[in-house]
């Protein structure tokens, strides 16, 4: 659906933020983009959104080159959720705020009402539809930003570190929401530092390192081998580390945290009885 071919990008201060990046995103994928700060993750997503234009190379969406597309054109197909929802929230109620995008795209009144209602329902914001959005909690505001993107009925949803600065409960709540959307057919592109969430939810991971694509493949594959991911500024999730350490003792366990716990209890219990 989305195709990047030999993308290069240089900022005006000559910093190279993307170097010869080629990748394809298929419809329905859940892709995580990881890497240390300044590795080019956000640059990559901004290039996809047409907020930045590649210095060389081409980006095609559904076979169409996006060179002449403005971000507002892309907004019809791609929803982009920024890290800081305060930069976009400006209306008096959550419902009005969510309606801004569809209004810009020229939805008919009936379609608009429906799109807003659906977005609020999916994100679980119906109860606060009439509330003043800036007074909400950070997690709720992030949901307003996601609802604002969803109301525009995008095919791809890009999120730049949506879980940063949130407690783990609202963080996983958000991820469950994304997983649900993904199950419903929406392609999700998630920039994140959180390895636990990445390992749990993303089926594919792209790792950026100094403006280049350092890894692109299945998330399971990334963690299953003794790959040196620390060189990319990443840390293995605890569950993967434990299960691999156990494998070294000849004990085969699953990486799913719930089953891992059960395996461990069984092991310890077995040892006690012996």
């Amino acid at each position: 659906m989305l195709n990047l071919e030999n993308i290069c990008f240089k900022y005006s201060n000559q910093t190279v933020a993307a170097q010869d990046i080629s990748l394809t995103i298929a419809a329905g994928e859940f892709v995580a983009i990881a890497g240390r700060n300044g590795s080019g993750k956000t640059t990559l997503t901004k290039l996809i959104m047409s907020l930045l234009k590649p210095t060389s190379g081409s980006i095609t969406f559904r076979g169409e080159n996006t060179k002449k597309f403005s971000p507002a054109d892309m907004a019809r197909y791609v929803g982009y959720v920024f890290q800081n929802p305060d930069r976009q929230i400006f209306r008096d109620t959550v419902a009005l705020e969510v309606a801004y995008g569809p209004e810009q795209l020229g939805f008919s009144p009936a379609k608009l009402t429906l799109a807003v209602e659906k977005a609020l329902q999916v994100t679980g914001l119906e109860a606060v539809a009439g509330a003043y959005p800036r007074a909400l909690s950070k997690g709720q505001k992030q949901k307003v930003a996601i609802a604002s993107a969803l109301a525009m009925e995008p095919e791809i949803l890009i999120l730049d570190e949506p879980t940063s600065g949130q407690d783990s409960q609202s963080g996983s709540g958000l991820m469950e929401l994304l997983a649900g959307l993904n199950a419903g057919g929406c392609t999700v592109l998630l920039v994140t530092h959180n390895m636990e969430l990445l390992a749990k939810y993303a089926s594919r991971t792209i790792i950026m390192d100094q403006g280049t694509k350092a890894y692109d493949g299945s998330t399971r594959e990334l963690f299953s081998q003794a790959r040196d991911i620390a060189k990319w500024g990443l840390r293995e999730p605890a569950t993967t580390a434990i299960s691999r350490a156990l494998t070294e003792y000849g004990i085969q366990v699953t990486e799913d945290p719930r089953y891992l716990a059960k395996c461990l209890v069984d092991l310890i219990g077995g040892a006690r009885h012996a």
Partner: protein
Amino acid sequence: MRKLAPLTKLILTITVTIWAFIMNDNIALAGIVALLAGTAAVSGLSQKQYKAMLSLAAFAAILVAFQYAFGSGVQLSLAAGFRMLIMTYLFFLLLATTRIQDLTAALVVHCRVPYDYAFMLTASLRFIPDLLAEIKAVQEAQACRGYSNKGNIIDRIVSYLSIVQPLVLRSISRSETMAMSLELRGFGNQAGRTFAAELTLSAKDYVTVGLIAAGTVVILSR
């Protein structure tokens, strides 16, 4: 320019601005412009800053053209253009070669400006680049929601509200945060405040101020 103390640069800026208004001789005014351009050339500014100086010159040329078109004489129009250039170049050089916190320190220590007022000046200057960056970020965020600066002037103004509103709201909450963090760091403690900035005057500064004084005497005596 960089090697002079902030106080010297302040004196230089203010006196030369006054010179520009006293003098009527276009050749002398042009001389000052050339001198300032020369100073800029040896001050090691960034390419962007040189470009800004060029666009100031272009703006001055337009000003001259307008003055002339609306019936002022050649002499008078040129003088107005030169004066504008001198003033803008002076302040440009001052701000480009002086750190703002040094300027505040000089105002407080040498000129006895109350610290609160000096701080207001520096804080507002300091916020300009922040604000520009913030405008860009908000614009990007709204562009992703379908904002585009198209249509007739009224449409544009109305749609621009979606940029202005988050910007103002964010700025207010940021200034509140800033006020709090300032108080936590001892802002308002009047007794015995010191500055990290290097303010002592060197021989270079005394020579420069001497030259400025001599120049002023010459100009006034003519």
